Structures are given as C-alpha cells and as structure tokens.
C-alpha cells in the first residue's frame, strides 16, 4: 500500500476556509470577548477572499483529487466560486451588529433569567462565524464530491452548522429553537435515507466513487433493482436538501424561524451546493439511468413548482412567502437537471448564480423593515412601504421582479436559459408547468409590490432602519448584480459556458 497523494493546491480553497473555521473556534476559546468580534470577522472575510483568490488561480483545473474522492473541474470551480461569493455576502449580513440578530446563549431557555441578563448586557455570541465558515466549506465540498462517502460527509459538514445557526435568533427565541430542532430532526431523517441509498448503490456497483458507479451502470445496463432502490433513496436525501416537494415541509418553518441573515445565507448557499451535488450525480454518476430517474424528477419538479407557488399565495408572512418562493425555484432548477445536456448544465449554473444574488438581496431587505420588537415580517404591515421609503421599496421591487423572472432582471436570464434547455431536450411538460407556475408566482410577487405602493402606510411603528455599511453594501451588490446580469448577461453566460465541463 502506497501513501495516497493529496493535491493541496487544488483543494486549497476548501482547506483555507476549513482552517479559518478552526482558527475561529480557537479565537472563540482563547481570546477575550472584547476582541472576538473583530478577529472573527477579520478571519472569516480574509479566508473567503483568499479562498476565492486561490480558486481564481486554479480555475483551469480539471482533474480528480484526493484519490478520486473529489473532482475539481470547471463545474466545481463555478459552484465553489458562487458559494464563496454568496458566503461572503451572507457573512456581511451576519456580521451586521446594528440589529442584534443573534442571541448570546442559544441554549438558554426562552424568557429565562440568563437570557434576560445576556440581552440587557447587549451580548451577541460570535460562534456564528466559525459555524458559517464550516457551512461554507461543506458547501464547497458538496458539489466537488466524487464519492458517495465524501458526499455524505460534506452534506453533514454543510448541514450541522446550519442546524445550529437556525436556532440563534435573538428575537422570537421559541420559533427559532423550534426551527433548529425541526431542521435537525428532519435533516437526520433524510440523511439516513441518503446513507441507506449509498449502501444499496455500493452493494450493486462495488464502488462508492462516481466513476465506479458510472462504469458499473454501463456494464450492467442499469436494470438492477438494488441500484434503483439506492438511487431512489439517494434522491430523497438530495431532494430534502434542495427542498423539493414532498420533502419541502421544513423550509417555511426554518426560513421563518432562523435569524434572517442566516436565512439569506442558507437560501443561497445551500441551494447552490445541493444543486451542484445533484447535477454531478445525475449528469455524471447515474447519467446512464436517465430513463429511470427522469420521469420521477419531472413529476417532482412539477409538484414542487405547484406547491411552492400555490401555497405562497396564502401566506401572510414575508419570510414564509420567500420560503415558498425558494421551493418553487427548486422546481424550476430541477428542470435544468431533467434536461441532461450541456445547455441544461450551463443553464442550471447560470440560474444558481443569478438566483443567489437576488435571494440574498431580498432577505437583506427583510432585515431592514422593523419596529421596536425586531423585524416586521407580517406582510400587511409592509403596506405603504413605497411611500415611506421609496428607495428600499424600489430595491425590493427589483428583487421581487428578479425572483419573478421579469425581463431586464437576472431572474429572466436564468429562467429563460433553463426553460430553453429543458425544451430543447424534449421535456415539454415540465416547461409548460414551469411557465404556468411562473405566472402564478408573478401574482404573489406583484401583490407585494402593489401592497407596498398602492396601499396607505399604517402608522404602527413599522419603519425602515438603515444599518451600517455592511448591509447596505450587500443590498447594493445584489441589486447591481440583479440588474446588470439582466441587462447585459453575456459575459457571465460566456464565462460559465466555457468553464462548465466535468472532468472525465
């Protein structure tokens, strides 16, 4: 047995973020409370920036790494780049101290003396930064994984910090803790399916690497029941992460309960990572079983779009509306996987890239609308926002139009690309459903816009709070990205098209 070879250079981006996360844990343990915040944010931002730099340096790579357990290729580079950008934006929101979003002691019982004391002294814990970095590293590893076990480990590295982060909200503690626990329990449940599925696949293919699975499917013709059972269970685990119906039920509760900066981070980064992993599995590992999984995914995609858009109409809480919108977007994104073509691959990556900016921007704006008790997420109280703060309402309108996929926003570019790809691959049914769902979705986005502009403001203490430059910068970056990629998407499209290839 020879010592395996680890390609530190091309794994650099992941390793940098992981190392920074560990440093963050040490800071938390050994540095006095006064300096923690500044050190933690410094480490986190520096690590993400460095990782991105390293990613740019290795952008031409296309090879397997770490004994074939990972694949660092163009697709990975694009996805890791997206994760790092959205991670950075998410960190900016999380680092915002103006709002006291994060509780000092997540484990304290709501309303207890300890909590009261921490609240009064204005403490906010800083563990969220290493947790975020762990989540980012997991999200970078997830789409790079080329092996079922690596995939599972990265899934857990991504998920476990998110379970904790969901429970960190300063306000509405019970809702937040409930969200964390629900997310954890259901996540564990779906992880079990995932692992069970991996075992079945290993049993049939005799290998956990994607290359091995691919080869075995070619050799066996792909009609083995155990392989199919394994694939079905694996699919459940993945679909849970992307919150596709019927595995979506956690999404609204968790999005609503989590601190909004975490929701923003989670919504963008998890989606990129999970779809990144899914696309590698369906395109590369089990591409040979397309006739088995495509009908399933078509059905799930249609159901997901329908559930996401229809239930969103009946929601009264802005964060829940956005959660259902995220579910609907998962349905749209699935059409890119269903396409199973180079176009579909490109379109999915473009969609993810554009969607991340828009969704982070949307949640960033949700953090701004507040009253004395914290964020105001009751939609009725957003009425008349356009008269109260035209700029914020205008930006929010831009994001909503982006989510709705109206032309001249990045959302249109993504939707157009992904539906075109699905159409070209002959899956008309899913395109028709997608267009119909988009129409329904436009209804509830526009309803919010109408509400903001055409209702009179209610004087109930709701106001728009403009915090430090960090949130403002996030919103500005997201708005510019949404607009620029809507008007002149060509450079991004070309860059992604030329990068997005799997390593053979």
């Amino acid at each position: 047995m020879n010592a395996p070879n680890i390609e530190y250079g091309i794994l650099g981006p992941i390793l940098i973020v992981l190392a920074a996360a560990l440093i963050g844990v040490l800071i938390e343990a050994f540095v006095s409370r006064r300096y923690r915040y500044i050190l933690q944010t410094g480490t986190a931002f520096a690590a993400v920036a460095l990782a991105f730099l390293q990613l740019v340096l290795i952008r031409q790579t296309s090879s397997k790494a770490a004994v074939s357990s990972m694949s660092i290729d163009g697709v990975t580079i694009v996805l890791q780049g997206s994760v790092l950008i959205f991670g950075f934006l998410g960190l900016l929101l999380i680092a915002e101290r103006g709002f006291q979003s994060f509780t000092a002691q997540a484990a304290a019982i709501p309303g207890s003396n300890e909590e009261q004391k921490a609240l009064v002294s204005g403490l906010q814990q800083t563990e969220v930064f290493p947790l975020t970095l762990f989540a980012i590293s997991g999200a970078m590893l997830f789409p790079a994984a080329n092996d079922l076990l690596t995939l599972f480990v990265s899934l857990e590295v991504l998920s476990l910090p998110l379970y904790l982060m969901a429970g960190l909200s300063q306000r509405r503690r019970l809702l937040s803790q409930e969200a964390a626990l629900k997310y954890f329990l259901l996540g564990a449940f779906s992880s079990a399916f995932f692992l069970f599925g991996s075992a079945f696949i290993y049993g049939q293919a005799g290998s956990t690497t994607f290359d091995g699975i691919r080869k075995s499917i070619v050799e066996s013709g792909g009609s083995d029941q155990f392989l199919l059972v394994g694939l079905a269970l694996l699919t459940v685990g993945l679909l849970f992460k992307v919150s596709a119906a019927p595995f979506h039920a956690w999404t609204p509760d968790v999005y609503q309960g989590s601190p909004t900066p975490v929701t923003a981070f989670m919504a963008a980064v998890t989606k990129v990572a999970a779809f990144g992993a899914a696309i590698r599995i369906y395109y590369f590992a089990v591409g040979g079983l397309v006739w088995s999984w495509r009908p399933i995914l078509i059905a799930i995609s249609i159901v997901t779009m329908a559930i996401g858009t229809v239930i969103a109409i009946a929601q009264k809480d802005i964060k829940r509306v956005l959660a259902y919108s995220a579910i609907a977007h998962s349905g749209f994104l699935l059409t890119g996987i269903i396409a199973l073509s180079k176009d579909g691959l490109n379109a999915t990556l473009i969609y993810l890239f554009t969607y991340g900016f828009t969704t982070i921007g949307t949640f960033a704006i949700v953090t701004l609308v507040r009253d004395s008790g914290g964020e105001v997420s009751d939609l009725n109280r957003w009425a008349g926002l356009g008269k109260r703060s035209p700029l914020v309402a205008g930006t929010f309108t831009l994001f909503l139009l982006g989510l709705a996929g109206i032309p001249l926003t990045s959302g249109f570019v993504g939707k157009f690309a992904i539906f075109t790809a699905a159409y070209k691959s002959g899956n008309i049914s899913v395109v028709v459903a997608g267009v119909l769902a988009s129409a329904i979705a436009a209804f509830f986005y526009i309803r919010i816009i109408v509400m903001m502009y055409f209702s009179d403001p209610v004087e109930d203490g709701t106001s728009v709070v403009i915090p430090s430059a960090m949130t403002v910068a996030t919103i500005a970056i997201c708005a510019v990205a949404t607009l620029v990629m809507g008007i002149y998407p060509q450079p991004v499209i070309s860059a992604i098209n030329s990068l997005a290839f799997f390593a053979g």
Partner: protein
Amino acid sequence: MSLGTSDTLVYLIAIPLFSSAFLLLGGRALDRVGHLIGTAASASSFVVALIELNKMLGRDAESRGVTQHLFTWINVGSFQIDATLLLDQLSICFVLLITGVGTLIHIYSISYMAHDIDRRRFFAFLNLFIAAMLLLVLGNSYLNLYVGWEGVGLASYLLIGFWNQKPTYATAAKKAFVANRVGDVGLSLAVMIAFVQFGAVTFDGVAKGIEAGSASSTALNAMGAAILLAAVGKSAQFPLQAWLGDAMAGPTPVSALIHAATMVTAGVYLISRSNFVFDNAPTAQLLVVIVGAVTLLFGAVIGMAKDDIKKALAASTMSQIGYMILATGLGPAGYAFAMMHLLTHGFFKAGMFLGAGSVMHGMNDEVDMRKYGALRKVMPITFATFGLGYLAIIGIPPFAGFYSKDKIIETAFNAGGSKGIILGCVTLLGAAITAFYMTRVMLMTFFGTKRWDSAAHPHESPWLMTVPMILLSIGSITTGFIFSNGDRLKNFLAPVVDKHHHEHETELLAPIVVTGLAMFAVAIGISIALAKYSRKTIPASAPTDVTVWTKIARRDLLQDDFNETVFMRPGQSLTRVLAFLDKRVVDGAVSGVGAMTLRLAGDLRKTQTGYVRSYALLILLGTVAILAAILVVTV
C-alpha cells in the same frame, strides 16, 4: 461603400450621457453649476462632431462612413446583435445639427431657465435627449436605432411635462407619449419583419438582403409601411399629428430643439436611412408621399387659425416636416432635398422658436399673439432674428428656405404624370399658405398697435439668449446657399441615399418656371395677410362671428374631435363592454380559478401542520412513492 473604423464615435454619445447621469445623480449640490456642465457636455460633443466631419472630408467620397463596434449586445445562437455605431454622410448631417443647434439652445436655456428651481434637472434631460438622439442617428441597425428612438421619446416626455405641476401639461406629455407608442409599434414591426426576412437588423444587412432579392415585394411594402407608421408617430404626421401642438407645453427651448429642429425630424431620418426599402417598395413609397402631402396642407391650415404663437409655429413645423416626408417619398431624387430642407428648417425654425421664447420672456409668458403687437421697437434683436427666420421659411431668395423648398417643389413637379402635377400644386399651395400664416404671425407680433396688458413690460432679452438667436439667424441666411451651391449636399449624400446614381428624369417644368410659380404663390400669401391684418386693428380676443371653416381650423381641423369620435368614444364603449365581459365572464372564470387556487392554497397550507412527525411522515410517504415509481418506471 467600404467602411473604415473609428474609436472616437462613442464619445459623441458618452459625453452628454454621462453628463446627464452626473447631473441627475449629483443632486442639489450641482444646482449652481449644472447648467454649465450640461452646456459644456453638449459643446464638447459638437467639437467631437466637427473633428469627425474634418476626418470624414479627408477621406474619399466612397469610403467616408466609419463604424465603431462597442460590444456584443445579444448573442443567442445565430442571433447576434452588436452595439455598433455608424457615422456616414447622412448621420454626420444630423450629428452636427443636433450638437450644434443643441449647444446654442443649451446656451439660450441658461438664461431662459435662470429662474426655474429645477434648472439642473432641465439640463440633465436636455443632455439625455442629445445622447439619445445621437444614438438614434448613429446606430448601425434598426435595433440600435430603436434604443435611441425610445430614448428621445422618453426625453421628450420628460421635457414636455417638465412643469408637470400643471395637470394640462402632464396630460400633454402623456398624449405625446401615447401617440409615439402607436408609432413605435410600427418600428418594432419593421424590426421583426427585417429579422424574419433577412435574418439581420443592421442597415447594411437589410440592404444586402434586399439586393440579393430575399424578400417578396409584399414584405418590403409591409416593412415600408411599418417604418412609415413609426415616422408618422415621431414626426407628428397625419394621422398621428395631434400631439405636437400640445407638446408646446414644454419650455420653449425644448420646443425649439426637440419639437422643431431635431426629434420630430427623426421620421425623415428613418425614411431616408431606409431608402433601400422604399426604393423597392413602390406602394409604401406612395403612402409616404400621400402622408407628406396631407400633413403639409393640414399643418398649414391649422397654422392660419392659431393665436398662440407657439402653436402656430408648431403647426408650421408639422407642415414643413410634411414637405420633407413628401420629398423622401419621391425616391432618390428627393432624399437629399429632404435632408437639405431638414437642415435649413432646423436653423430657421429653432431660431423662430427661440424668438418666440424671447418674446414670451419679455411678455410674462404670454403666448396669445392678440396681446402682442408693435414689439419690433422694444425687442429689436428678437425682431431682426425672427424676421430673418420668417424670410427663410416663406422661401424668399436668398434665404435658406428658398433653396430647399424650391428644390422640393421642383422635384414634386418632376415626379411624373398626374402625380407630379398634383404634388406640385399641393406644394405650391402649401408655400402660399405658409407665406400667409407666417406673415400673420409677424404682423400680429411685431407690427401694428400695442395690445399689451398693463402689467407687461416687454424688454429685449439678455445676451445669453440673443446670441444663439443671432447665430441661428445667420444659419437661416447662409445655409441654403452653402448646401445647394453646386449641388454640394446632394453629392455629399449621394453615396448613402443614391447608390445607383439615378439620373434626373424628364423635367416637367424648367427650374426657373417653378421658382417663378413659387414666388408668385408666396406673393399671394403675403398680400392676403397684409390686406387682412395690417390695415385693421386686431381685436384682443378672437372674433367669434367667423365662418365654420375658421372654427374648424381653430379646433386643429377637428383632429382631437376625430380622435375622440373614432378612437376614444368607441374605445371607451369597447372598454365598457369589455369591462362588463371581463367582470362577468372573464373575472367569473378568473376569480373562480383564483378562488379555487386560494382554496387549494388554504387546503394545502393545512398540510403544513408544524409538527415534525407529520413532516417526517410526508418524507416517508414521498420516499415510498419514489421507490415505487422508480421501480415501476424501470422494471
């Protein structure tokens, strides 16, 4: 025609565009210097244009056009649109007119708008207009042109409604916007036809496609008609002319720049630019001629009845553009003369509008000519410059209008057959009426007895306003001779609009005869006006005991009534019927569907119980379903 490239074209557009953005975003901090920045931007653009002209004249006649590729705008499969600028002989005329006259009007506005608190915004919009108009004439494809086309529409809307605190002004802006939208449908249709027929939307690509014969004559006629519709909307031609009079609600410099000299002539530019379409689409070309002829009389008749000095001038603009459109409809022989009239008109009409502005400036913004009179003594410079413009527009030699209008009349007569005779007579009649109503304007404003309000203290305008007027009046004197001497402009433009060097066909009447006829017509017009307005005193309010024809003319030849009866009333009834149907039938269905969706949403929402156990059950059921499905599908 081979095309070179140039790296500097983009500055023409970029300078005013950035200036506009800077002024708009800069906020109140720039209030004190905004007008200077705006004027400097326009002047810089003019300097760039002069440099480009100099370079162009240095190249030989067949390769004077240059292009600059900015970026690939859209690239979807075989559909590629480049943002490319094209500067050739045709565009340079416009570029110089836009930036040159534009700069003069900027200077004028510094003083004219001095007391307006929103002067900075005004200059930002003016710069935006300059940038958009330049993009319109510099785009190398119908799609690029379309961007500029919409841009000038926007700038025009913003500037007509600049004083939008008055509801009628805001309404006027909307009216202009809506009429323009109708025309824009034409332009987008033209773009679509071009793309379907030729797979290209560049002028070059379409021209080559036509030459290769890849389109049927029906398609070409359709495209020509669509282009004409666009031109009709933008250039206030019959039947979309009604907005121009109301557009006078904007500040007078705007009327001078946008609604006299440049934007309204965009239709002429579009038709001249599309010469390759019209030369192969005789039916569309005939339509162009008819539209031009009708508008030229229509505007002239309205002009006779207007007491509002700006509306009288607006009617005259409509009529003069009718001349240009008519000329473009006459084929290769006409394009150059249309352009010539366009350029000379740009000078004299802008000058007259500025003169009108100057009068209003001195008369507390009074626009009713019945309240003017005898202003020549108190406003000598305004009188002189306006008078020179007057001589130019009615076509007295050697002023600019004489050369250009005379050529159009001549070309009309030479169009051949009865068509030539009819068109010739129409243009002659137009010339006579023009002479009449312009003389009327002169007499009512500058001669006769003073009929001012006691509150008015007319005075000459400051030099910042008079200098542009003087410069423009010099243009109204000289440009005609410069352009027509030795067919200079015609030869200059020939490589663009007359590639195949059409020779003049038979001459119906000798040029000297035509000139004589025109002079005669003008003389008649002037004498009638003199007889009617110089003897009697002019009543302070319009007489009511007039013939029904006068009444009709005062009501803009019933254009609004027509629109109201033919479009608005039936439209409203239709809307009412539709609203009823919508409410009962469609809404019934929609709100039925909506209610069903909502009920469904409500029902589905109940699955969201909040209990982890039911979520887990859902996941389990989903898993079982997937397992079953995948096995059923495959095995």
